[in-house]
């Protein structure tokens, strides 16, 4: 039985200390691309959260039940990306069929998720060097789920904060050549500096 502290550490560490976007540079493309409006940033984050948790479970299971027992861990890249891609297809299909409203909100972001580094990155760190790799199969799975959820929360947090900042930046008087992405990047850099300060809290 894994103590609740471990889950707490997993969630805080994956959400704040090792924030996917600012500290691990995963999922920077949607971070810069889909953060112009708060609404779309939240839609993207929600879709990412959903896919990240499920894909973490699936990739963890496939790795430990199929790849590892047969000694073919080296094909994990191709296996993981295809699992994530099929999962996204399934989710998209389900949303299309059952909820038009949801599709309107999330549908546009789902295809983008396949190429979101954060999903593959979190799945990879769960099996290789993350907290989850230190517990046995069952415990590792639980920690992996919590870690994935924490990472997705961290992603959502950053997306929300950043899109709010960007909406203000649009109205700010920025030198011509800094307009748009350059000033956003520098803003993100300052956010990363702030997150650096969270390093010692756990």
């Amino acid at each position, binding site marked *: 039985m894994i103590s609740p502290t471990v889950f707490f550490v997993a969630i805080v560490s994956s959400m704040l200390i090792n924030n996917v976007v600012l500290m691990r540079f995963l999922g920077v493309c949607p971070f810069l691309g889909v953060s112009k409006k708060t609404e779309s940033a939240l839609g993207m984050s929600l879709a990412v959260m959903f896919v990240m948790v499920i894909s973490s479970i699936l990739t963890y299971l496939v790795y430990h039940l199929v790849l590892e027992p047969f000694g073919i861990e080296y*094909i994990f890249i191709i296996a993981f990306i295809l699992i994530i891609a099929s999962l996204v297809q399934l989710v998209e299909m389900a949303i299309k069929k059952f909820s038009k409203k949801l599709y309107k909100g999330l549908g546009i972001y789902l295809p983008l998720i396949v190429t979101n580094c954060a999903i593959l990155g979190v799945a990879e760190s769960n099996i290789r060097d993350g*907290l989850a790799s*230190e517990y046995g199969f069952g415990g590792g799975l639980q920690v992996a789920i919590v870690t994935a959820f924490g990472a997705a929360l961290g992603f959502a947090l950053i997306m929300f904060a950043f899109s709010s900042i960007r909406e203000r930046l649009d109205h700010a008087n920025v030198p011509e050549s800094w307009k748009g992405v350059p000033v956003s990047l520098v803003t993100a850099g300052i956010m990363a500096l702030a997150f650096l*300060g969270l*390093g*010692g809290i756990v």
Partner: protein
Amino acid sequence: MLDKLKIALTLLVVGAIAGAAIVGVYTLTEERIAANREEAQNADLMAIFPDMDISKLEREEMDLNYLVERMTAYDSDGNELGTIFRGISSSYGGDNTVLVGVDRDGKIVKVIISQTSDTTNIVRDVIDLLDTQFAGKNFDELSHDAPSGATQSYNSVWRVVEEVSLQIEGDPTQEAFRSVFEDADSYSVVFTFEDKAFTDEYVIRDADDAVLGYAYLIEYDEDNEVFLIVDKDDVFKGFVGIDNVDSDVEDAIVYYDDQIDSDLVDIMADSGDVLEDAINDLQPIVEATTRIDKEHVVRYQNYYDDEDDHVGYLYTGYSSGFNGMNVIEILINFDGEIVSIEVVRTSDTPEYIQPDVIDQLDNLYGETSVDGFEADDVFAGATSSGRSVLNAVGAALEAFNERDGE
């Protein structure tokens, strides 16, 4: 339909070719990758002793709290350079693997974090500190100054270094026991007392796991810890301090130096006045002589067989026999059946207890209760010794059932 089939077939072929290509490259690179991984591990070792001949490295597995491996390093001429300890300790991001190199004089050569799951820039703060904090120092010079913001990472290193220190400098407790029993090899706490002047009872064993004696930990205050040591026949072996001992405690220790090798009970009889007058500090010795009055089963411990499977609980029972105290270890499996009984310490005469009690004990194996047994029947010839064993076994079974009922 044919179209679909064609599509599926195309992709299957693409997939098969892809798989084959991956497998092909993997077979080509497999050996080199394995070699690289090993070399990378050794690279950290080489950083500690650059003159080391890696092929002469002697590896020995360890099973301590943090330390997992002990490696003795030799140079190419076969001269011993020192020892490297590998320890694994957890930090906030996951486990850190720490290597501690110690030269032959007991000085730390280098401390390296060879693997980490923590954020790079945080670990970097710790790595910057490692050389100034540890390298070239003796273990007693170390100070625990964690850098701000990287406490967890630093502590994971510190815990490993601390355990290495125990290995190199020796465990002070072990050293204390060794000053009395030369052969002392291991020790463990058998019982923790709550109502006595001493807190823990230790059993001291030699390399063959035979009991050498017992120690009672007396904590006067935070800095004052003294062991009262008796051998397995309750002969007083003196007091040993493991921390700084106050001068009046020291005086008492010196006073009792004369009494070493006398029976505990005799000391009691002799020195009653002295105790009353001046040396209240040594009240424990009185209690140590009276502990034998209590018949009890001390706490159980989990018992593991040779394959490390948890097979049952080992109870330690105290029970007075014909001459004095008997200590009996009873192993009970999960079904509450007696698996084995061993008399680990007895004050009774061997000529009686060996044939009449110890050799008869297997009659009890497999039982879940001793109610049907009478000491007179089973252990004819050494009835009171036998009764003492039966009492201990019965108490152990009772303790098991109580525990089980929870």
